[in-house]
């Protein structure tokens, strides 16, 4: 029961990654902008996702040696097939 210009909070949180990647159409993006400005809960959720990304970005990359990345990648491809 979503109306033309309102977005439910439980929908918004699922679109956060697309939103941050700029992968949404302009109409949806506008809806999200408006919701974020009006809903403290969603605004906090976005801020916390940003904080999470920035904490991840601060992790030292050397914590992940190349061989473990290769191992992960091959595991990934196995899982995909």
């Amino acid at each position, binding site marked *: 029961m979503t109306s033309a210009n309102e977005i439910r909070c*439980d929908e918004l949180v699922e679109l956060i*990654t697309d939103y941050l990647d700029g992968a949404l159409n302009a109409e949806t993006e506008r809806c999200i902008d*408006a919701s974020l*400005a009006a809903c403290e809960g969603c605004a906090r959720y*976005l801020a916390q996702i940003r904080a999470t990304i920035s904490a991840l970005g601060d992790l030292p990359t050397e914590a992940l040696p190349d061989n473990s990345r290769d191992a992960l990648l091959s595991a990934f491809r196995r899982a*995909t097939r």
Partner: protein
Amino acid sequence: MASERGSGELTAQAGVSAGPTVDPSRFRGSDDPFEGHWREFPAPWPSTEDEHVAARVRAHVASVLGRLPSRQQVVLTLRDIEGFNSDETSSIVEISEVEQRVLLQRARAFVRAELENHFDVDDPKDPAAAEDRHRSLRRRMLPLYAAAGLQGVGLWVPVEKLFMSEIGFTPATIGVMAAAYAAVVPIIEVPSGILADRWSRRGVLIIASAALATSALVGGLSTNVATYIVAALVLGVYFAMYSGTMESIVYDTVLEETGDSTVFQRRLGRVRVVEGSALVSSSLVGGWTAELTSTRLTYFLTVPFVAGSIVLYLTFREPRLHQATRATSLRNQVTVTYRTITRRGVVLPIVTAAVLTSLILQVLFEFGPLWLVAISAAALWYGPFWAALVSTLGLGGLLAGRLRLDRLGPVLTITVIMLLASVALTVSRHLAVVTAAQVLLALLIVVANIHVTGQLHDAVPSSIRSGVASGVGALSWIAFLPFALVFGLLSNTLGVHSAAWLITATVVMAGVILGRLAFRARPHRNLADLLHRYADGTLDAAAERRAAAHLASCGACRAHVEQMRKTISMLGDLPTEPLPDQTRDALLSSLRSRTSRVPVAPGETAEIVNALDRTQT
């Protein structure tokens, strides 16, 4: 239209099964009229600017990475730790960008939820950490308190009228000046608040101090009426810039440092104590300086103090909460700010309570000494009387947050005391009684006003905080003008004691709304908004019939609508339109359905009807 952009589209394209990434129990269920909205907002997180906190967060994040499913772990690592973009990541792992984003979305949500647990268990189980936060808050606030004190210095304030008469003011030109000042403040209030939200709260406070220093300088240099009026206008700029912005910066700092707003009232109270003390002590020193030297010098001596406040603001670390959401267009921001002040069922009673309490306080400060005139008190008593009245600003600050005005009992108690005090002002001709009644009333109103300010800030997001607070300031200002006019007229014709019935009536209204706010345990923001539209009569016929049917069976909602109707009729007389009708309509329709001609869009009406259907089944 919803299907064009819903998350369903996304998962269909991605070809992966994607249940919700946030625990569905965090949102209202299908039994609730507002299905899909937050049950309770996620609790705010403490600031990670402190390296100690940031290090613990990093350690925790690193420790949970291993618990992610491997596909998510790889995508998250590539995107957020190694910093590849969406395109690069999908070619490295050979999946579509859409699928890559679905995995990333799930991984980020998982890590966020883990961090949330981390912050959640941090507090109650670790009292030392909580104590650390409060100590860090106190340390961070110091430059702000000091700046508030320095900008509160006004050596010229007690001798202003004297100086004005020295440079040729007459009662008529004093009136012109007061009117010019009164016009500037509400015009600049809201734009200055929006500037604080979009740009920087600290920046706006610095501009405010610069305006205050300029005003003192121009005032001191004035040798005629015209230049002094310019100084008064610049003082209006200061006032508009400062009000609303200071409380917002205090609120956001408290939220950022401690993760919640419980100590906001006390921190804002502390600011008020410092401001009040500076005002009282600088008034004493100013009178004495003018006696020894000249009235003109008090203006120049004020400037270095105010300039000092700018230096202190520069050493204050500004909270960043208002920048958390991505910048929206100015148009959207103005619309949302405006709608929040005027449209929300939950915010409106708080706004009304804030306006009423400010109104009573302003009336006491403006007309309080009239009682002394009416009972022919000796000139000797005016000084101590005024000092006692002004000191309530600081004393109220000390009491703020300690009276538990979120409970019905304390609200009832202070309302009764305020009523007794205001009735005393209508009958008593005894100096001690009149003074005590005014001081008591002012004191409790200051406490109530700080309490309501806390509620207002609790109800609005940081991105529009200063704008809303400044809007309330402007409303109070606008409400005061006609009130003061009527009050002055009544005092002239019937005497100040009879005019005091106006104060009593305002106290009753404020008490009712404060009681209602305390009574309303956990407001349902969205439902309140719809009921507001019902109360406002802006629903279409079908929705209105359904709403009426629901109200017939729901006492709580009925009471809420009645309360709102009262509030609406009280606010109805106030000019609350900061934008011309045409502009406002254009702004609103940009947010609503393009085909809508009624104030409520058809989609919203459908939502209301559905919502009511569900409540009834």
